[in-house]
């Protein structure tokens, strides 16, 4: 199986603290990989390295065998790696529809058109509305993103990521801060994408039960190092993992 994303000894150091320490993984195409680990294990930092928000102090990242370590976030998105953010990261004073429409516009490659009115591209709005329907947010399309509840912002965040239609989806705790009733809807969306089977998904999640039946493989980060990487069953049985993460969790 060919690897879509591969990291080689990926490390980043802030001052004296090594947040991610020589992590080497490979994610095959159309794979569903989950990243778990306690708080401060370096999960989000690892994501920031993959999506280009941070530059590694050491190591390389390959996408389809191509070295993308030096790519800017913009170019990584264009190459096919899209991400959602754990801390809600939307355009606060634009409408919900406009938030997604911008992502659709980017996906369609309309970037420097300045002569026509944006409404000329009706298809963008329709497409954006479809994405909003998928995450059950279409009734809020005209409110400002800043007026949304936290869970709704998370949904918007996911809609924006989906609208980019990138090959790889990096989801950083998509259900974080959501009320319990909202979680199933988001899980439903993620399952739908998985069933379609044309995306590679990397997911950070705290809720173990949620990811175990979804994931093809699970990797465990602990203090910046890769503790284990394998199928969900292997991870559940792994003793180091149990003592480091699951153990504390189950008590």
């Amino acid at each position: 199986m060919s690897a879509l994303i591969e990291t080689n000894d990926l490390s980043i150091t802030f001052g004296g603290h090594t947040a991610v320490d020589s992590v080497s993984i490979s994610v095959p195409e159309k794979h569903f990989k989950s990243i778990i680990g306690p708080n401060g294990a370096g999960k989000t930092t690892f994501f920031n390295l993959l999506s280009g928000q941070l530059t590694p102090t050491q190591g390389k990242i390959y996408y389809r065998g191509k070295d993308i370590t030096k790519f800017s976030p913009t170019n990584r998105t264009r190459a096919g790696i899209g991400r959602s953010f754990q801390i809600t990261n939307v355009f606060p004073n634009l409408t919900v529809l406009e938030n997604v429409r911008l992502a659709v516009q980017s996906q369609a490659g309309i970037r420097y058109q300045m002569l026509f009115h944006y409404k000329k591209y009706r298809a963008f709005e329709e497409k954006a509305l479809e994405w909003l329907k998928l995450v059950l947010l279409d009734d809020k399309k005209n409110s400002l993103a800043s007026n949304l509840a936290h869970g709704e912002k998370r949904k918007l965040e996911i809609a924006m990521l989906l609208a980019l239609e990138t090959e790889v989806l990096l989801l950083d705790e998509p259900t974080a801060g959501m009320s319990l009733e909202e979680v199933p809807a988001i899980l439903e969306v993620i399952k739908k994408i998985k069933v379609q089977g044309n995306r590679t998904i990397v997911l950070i999640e705290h809720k173990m039960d949620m990811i175990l039946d979804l994931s093809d493989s699970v990797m465990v980060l602990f203090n910046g190092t890769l503790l284990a990487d394998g199928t969900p069953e292997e991870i559940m049985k792994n003793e180091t993992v149990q003592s480091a993460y699951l153990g504390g969790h189950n008590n």
Partner: protein
Amino acid sequence: MTAIVLIVAAFLLLLPFVYESRNLLILLTQVFVFSIFAMSYDLLLGFTGIVSFGHAMFFGIGAYSMGIFMKRFEPTLGYFLLAVLTTIVITGFVSFLVGLLTLRLKSHFYAMLTLSLSGLFLVLAEKWRTLTYGNDGFTFRVPELFIDRTNFYLLCMVVMVAVFLILKRFTNSPLGRVLQAIRENEQRTESLGFHVLHYKIAASVMSGVLAGIAGILYAISLRFVNTSVFAMDITLDALLMTIIGGVGTLVGAIIGAGLIEFAHHWLTELAKEHWIFERWIIFFGIIYILVVMFFPRGIVGTLSSISWKRKKQHSAKKEGKLAG
């Protein structure tokens, strides 16, 4: 809303033919010129979220280009067009370079840099005496067509409307929508796959060139140019006009320009009554503080949010009735 705009436009168009007051005509011409300038500033501040303290440099480049061309050569329409072209080229080039700097410099660092750059132009205008006649500046003759105040009034009005329409289309184009996304969240715009720098440069160039055009018209209206066109006051005026009118709305910039110009005019007139009014800048300072404290969204922003609330209440009542 459209009806109001059309009525005001028709009124302004007919004004010079029915009401013969040279002063009012000159004042309104000034309002048009500064409307263009304020709108160009609003493209940066209100739409892209770039704070520049050096917008006067583009204004000054336009004013000096026109002045120098008219002084050195014949005041004909040909040279006038050449001066316009020169302004567009120079302001385009300078604003491109300044736009490039947004890459490394964020917010207040960028603001400080633009401030010092425009200071550099001020010094250049002072010291390059052979070309600019230093601090005192120089008078010049203008093309025959513009000697008539009514003609020039109409020209400024037409240019203002044109700039308004151009910017309206520009800000509502797919590119313009990305500018507003950058204002909201630069990092997120980047991860959506847009090269933020390209957009900032586009906004900077557009804004710089339009400010240059405002400078051209300003110089012609005075038939005189001196170093004051590069002064910090010019930038501050634009800032004040945009903020009072309403940041991020083009109409707001026009209303703000009108208010500030008229207030300036009246306050100077009042100076005959009491010496305090000679220091009109004190009053501007007070207005500025009050606006920022109580109407941070400016006149247009506040009005539109009130009308929006009313609409909402109205529809809520309607729904209540239906339910009842």
